[in-house]
C-alpha cells in the first residue's frame, strides 16, 4: 500500500520536475534550434519547431562575415590568462592562510571578500582613464589584468576552503617520517589539493568567460571577446536571428559543458563556503 503511494508520488514529481526543467531550459533549446534554420524560417510565424529545412550554413557564415574565431580566441586568452595568473598569486596566499593561520587571517580573508563587493561601476571612470593613459583600451593585456584582480578574491576564498579541509595531521606524519618540505609538497599535498585546484580553475574560468561589464566597456574590436562580439548583434539592422543564434550557441557551448561538470563546486565557490 505504502509502496503504491510512493510510486505515484515519484511519477508526479518526475513529471513536474521535467516540465519545469524543460521550461527553464527552453530559451537555450530554442536558440540552438534556430541556429540550424534559414533566416527566413527563423522569422516565420507560426514558428517551426522541428520540421524545417535543417542547415549549418549559419555556422559557416558567422565565421566568414565576422571572424568568429578571432573573438573566441580572445575569450580563451583573456579568461584563461586571467585565471592562470590569479591562481599563481592565490595558491601561495590561500596555502599560507590555511596552513599557518595567524590571529589576523580571518580579518584578511573578510577584507579580501569585501573588495569583491565593490561595484565595478563605482570605479569605472578611473579604470577607464588609467587604461586609456597606458594604452590598455581594447587590449587583451588590460582585460587580463582587470579580470584577474576582479576574480582574485573568489579564487583565494575557494582555494582556502579546499585547503582547510586537508588534514594537518597528515603533514606531521610525513614530517615524522623524515619527508622534506619539497617531498611533502609533491607527494602528500599536491595529490590532495588537485580536486580543489581543478574546480577553482574551472569555476573562475567560467566567470571570466561570461564577464560582461569590463569587457563591454574596455574593448571594442581587436581585443573583444565573445561577450562583446555577441553584443554587436544588438543593432537592429536586418534579420540575423539565425546567425545570432549560431554565434551564441558557439559562444556558450563550451561553457555549458564545463559548467555542468562544476555545478557542485558552484554553490561552494559563489557563497564563499557559507552554504555547503
Amino acid at each position, binding site marked *: 500500500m505504502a509502496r503504491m503511494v510512493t510510486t505515484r508520488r515519484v511519477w508526479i514529481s518526475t513529471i513536474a520536475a521535467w516540465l519545469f526543467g524543460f521550461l527553464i531550459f527552453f*530559451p537555450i533549446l530554442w536558440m540552438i534550434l534556430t541556429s540550424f534554420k534559414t533566416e527566413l524560417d527563423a522569422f516565420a510565424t507560426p514558428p517551426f519547431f522541428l520540421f524545417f529545412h535543417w542547415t549549418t550554413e549559419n555556422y559557416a557564415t558567422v565565421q566568414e562575415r565576422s571572424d568568429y574565431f578571432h573573438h573566441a580566441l580572445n575569450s580563451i586568452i583573456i579568461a584563461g590568462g586571467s585565471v592562470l595568473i590569479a591562481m599563481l598569486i592565490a595558491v601561495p*596566499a590561500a596555502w599560507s592562510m590555511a596552513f599557518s593561520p595567524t590571529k589576523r587571517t580571518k580579518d584578511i580573508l573578510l577584507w579580501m571578500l569585501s573588495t569583491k563587493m565593490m561595484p565595478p561601476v563605482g570605479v569605472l571612470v578611473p579604470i577607464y582613464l588609467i587604461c586609456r593613459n597606458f594604452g590598455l583600451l581594447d587590449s587583451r593585456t588590460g582585460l587580463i589584468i582587470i579580470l584577474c*584582480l576582479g576574480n582574485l578574491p573568489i579564487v583565494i576564498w575557494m582555494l582556502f576552503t579546499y585547503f582547510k579541509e586537508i588534514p594537518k595531521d597528515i603533514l606531521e606524519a610525513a614530517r615524522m617520517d623524515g619527508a622534506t618540505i619539497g617531498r611533502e609538497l609533491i607527494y602528500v599535498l599536491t595529490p590532495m589539493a588537485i580536486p580543489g585546484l581543478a574546480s577553482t580553475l574551472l569555476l573562475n574560468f567560467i566567470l571570466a568567460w561570461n564577464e560582461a561589464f569590463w569587457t563591454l*566597456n574596455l574593448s571594442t574590436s581587436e581585443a573583444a571577446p565573445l561577450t562583446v562580439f555577441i553584443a554587436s548583434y544588438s543593432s537592429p539592422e536586418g534579420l540575423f536571428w539565425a546567425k545570432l543564434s549560431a554565434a551564441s550557441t558557439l559562444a556558450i557551448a563550451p561553457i555549458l559543458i564545463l559548467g555542468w561538470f562544476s555545478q557542485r563546486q558552484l554553490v561552494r565557490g559563489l557563497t564563499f563556503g*557559507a552554504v555547503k
Partner: protein
Amino acid sequence: MATRQTQILARTLLSPAVVLLFIWMIVPLALTIYFSTLHYSLLDPGSESFVGLDNFRYFLTDPAFIASLQNTLVLVGSVLAITILLGIPLAMLLDQPVIGQGIVRLMVIAPFFVMPTVSALVWKNLLMHPVSGLFAWLAKLAGLQPIDWFNDAPLFSVILIVSWQWLPFATLILLTALQSLDEEQKEAAEMDGARALSTFIYITLPHLARPITVVILIETIFLLTVFAEIFVTTGGGPGLQTTNIAFLIYSQALIQFDVGSASAGGLVAVVIANVVAFFLVRIVGKNLEA
C-alpha cells in the same frame, strides 16, 4: 626556530595577493573620490577645476538619479522575489526522488552559464519580439494581442530576463541546503502526524533561513550593477524607464564624458553596495568560526 621560519615564509607567500588587492581597491577608489570633486569633462580637457561637492549636488538632485534609483530598487526587489519564491518550490521538487534527476538538474542550472549578452539578445529577439517572437505567436494562439515587450513593459522585460538568469543560482543553493536537512527530523514530524504544510513551515523554512539570506545578499550585490542586459536590449530607454544606477553612471562617463558627475555617482553606488556587503561579510565571517 622552525616556526619562526614558517611564519616568515607564510607572510611572504601571502603578501603579493594582499598588496595587489590593496592597490586594486585603493587606487581606483581614491581616484574616484578625487574626480568626484572636480569639474572634469573629457570633451573639454585641461579645464579641470575643483568644485567641492557640486557634482554630488548635481548627481543627487538630477531627476535621472531618482528615476534610476527607483528602477534599481524595483529591479533588485523583483528579481529577488521571483527567484526566491520560484526557487523554493523548485528546489523542493528537485529534492524529491525524480526519474532522470541528473538531467533535470542540468536543464535547470543551464541559464546560469549563459553569458549575459547572449541571454538578453535571445530573449529579446527570439522570444519577446512583438511580431515574430515566440511569445507573440503564443499570445495570438490564445487570441490575445501580442505584447510589445520592450516598449510597453520595458523594465518588466529586463526583470524577466535577469530572473531567468538568477533562478538557477537560487534554486541550486536552496537545493544544496535542503539536501543537508536531516531526513529523520522530517520523518519524525510525519510520524507525529504533522501535515505537509506544517512540516514545511516549522522544519523546512527555518532550515532554509540562512541559505535564503545568503542568496539575497549575493544576488543583491550582483543585481545592483546589472549592466549588460540593459546595454544590449534597451540602452536604458525608452526615456529613462530601464536606466538603473549602473547604466546611468556608464552613460554619464562614456557617453556624456562627464567624469566628475559619473565619479560622484560611482561613490553613491559604492555606498549602497557597502551597506549590503556589511551584512554579507558578517554572515560569512560567522561561518568561518564554526
